[in-house]
């Protein structure tokens, strides 16, 4: 039996190696999950701090709810599973409210809604953003996003490639491997205005499809936590009314990102 004892000892040692964390959502302390790779909404500064529209909105909402919030970064691919696993209590990461996601998580009301757009290399001969215009082209998008889903569903005559983060498709359109990329218009504008985006230009915005793009970006929380959802909704309404939203909005955009 001696080796059984060895086994249990090892198992115990391993269990303590995993960090213990409490995920209690008592309204006072909240953990917010975000991606940190999606400027201007959420990204890391050079010294490793989070910044962006999502982060400012999250802080404003937490202040409104009188909650103490901490941020946790998580790769986009695993952002919903980690919410379900209790790594954090809410996702504020420009996540579009879609029917597919609603099966797994609950959403608050939207906190912004901006249209998708297409960017192409500066010397591109492409003239339009419709599926017919882009037939035969290689279109890049971040995988598992509404933009990738939309491109796959509508641009069936094009080759659609899904990338782990936005950074990779930017690299591939700069090298000419892609003919076009599709993402949120504000994300593309931010990139095109930077030194990195010198390769490319904005071709135009695309009329969103509510069935795929949803009704805008919302805050995702675990299913059934209606109390937390109600608190967030009240807070969104409050910052819209008291001008906090507008001051954050004007820091990033020249138009009202909340949408119609």
């Amino acid at each position, binding site marked *: *039996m001696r080796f*059984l004892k060895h086994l249990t000892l090892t198992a115990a040692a391993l269990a303590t190696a995993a960090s213990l964390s409490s995920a209690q959502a008592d309204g006072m302390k909240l953990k917010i999950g975000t991606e940190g790779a999606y400027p201007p909404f959420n990204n890391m500064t050079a010294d490793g701090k989070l910044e962006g529209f999502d982060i400012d909105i999250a802080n404003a909402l937490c202040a409104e709810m009188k909650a103490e919030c901490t941020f946790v970064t998580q790769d986009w*691919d695993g952002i*919903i*599973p980690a919410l*379900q696993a209790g790594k954090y209590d809410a996702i504020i990461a420009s996540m579009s409210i879609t029917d*597919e*996601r609603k*099966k*797994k998580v609950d959403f608050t009301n939207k906190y912004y809604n901006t249209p998708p757009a297409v960017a192409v290399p500066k010397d591109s001969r492409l003239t339009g953003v419709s599926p017919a215009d882009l037939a035969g082209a290689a279109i*890049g998008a971040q*995988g*598992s996003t509404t933009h990738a*889903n939309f491109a796959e569903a509508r641009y069936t005559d094009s080759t659609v*490639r*899904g*990338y*782990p983060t936005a950074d990779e498709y930017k*690299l*591939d359109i*700069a*090298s*000419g*491997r892609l003919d076009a990329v599709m993402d949120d218009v504000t994300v593309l504008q931010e990139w095109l205005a930077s030194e990195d985006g010198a390769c490319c230009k904005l071709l135009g915005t695309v009329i969103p499809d509510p069935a795929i793009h949803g009704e805008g970006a919302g805050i995702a929380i675990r299913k059934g936590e209606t109390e937390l959802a109600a608190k967030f909704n009240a807070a969104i309404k409050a910052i819209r009314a008291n001008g906090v939203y507008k001051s954050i909005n004007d820091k990033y955009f020249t138009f009202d990102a909340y949408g119609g």
Partner: protein
Amino acid sequence: MSTSPTAVVNERIQPALPPPLVARRWSGTRTVGWIALAAMLGLLGGLSLYLILSWDLELITKYGPKYWQGLQITLGLVATSIVFGAAMSLPVAMARLSPNRAVGALAYGYVYLFRGTPLLAQVFLVYYGAGEFRPELQSVGLWGFFRDPWNCAVFAFALNTAAYQAEILRGAIQSVAKGQWEAAEALGLTRLQAFRKIILPQALIVALRPYGNEIILMLKGSAIVAIITVLDLMGETRRAYSRSFDFQTYLWAAVIYLLMVETIRNIWERLEKHLTRHLRRDG
């Protein structure tokens, strides 16, 4: 047992019986065995039960065809890489065996480089490296090839597996006794004839098992191409998971990969048995 003095002497010179073949039972071995088996079957059974209970026809009809497409991409990618790798491995193995020190060192460097670094790093190096050298590649007319991620994957995989296959081949050729070369020479065969008709057939039998392992390694290793946007079985799985957030998407992929690996292993075992039937002493 006799008590007479002669009998005592007889007993002393009798060799002791060997210890019993069945060793003493380790106390609790059986319990441990049942617990281990129960745990293993419990886990597998639980996962199978989960797959059955969460049987979702909508999910299967939605992603099933995608998995099938991904599977075809995976198999095509692996087969192409293995074949090109095999073709490239022959000169590399020859160079490794060459009496020329410089040629041997060059081949050794190639093999060491590709066996000593992760496949993922090699794929990234080819894929993003090619993107960086687009103007140069365009001027020699190779950009059309490297523009496509599938081609980049095959290129990196073939280079990688060529290094491994060259080592397999070299080891196998060296395992053939030197006397075989000498006998061939004595029969008046040229070196090429000797290699083709005497050495290679014997070497390939030795190489058979490692070749099978290499195919399995390539099949498992190919799962990384999803990261450079090739939608193989793993890529389709990740996509299905990121849309449905249903864990069974990964479990189905696990089942498919396991079935493929076990199939290859069984085919290979039969092939080996068949090809080495002349070496068996019994049956």
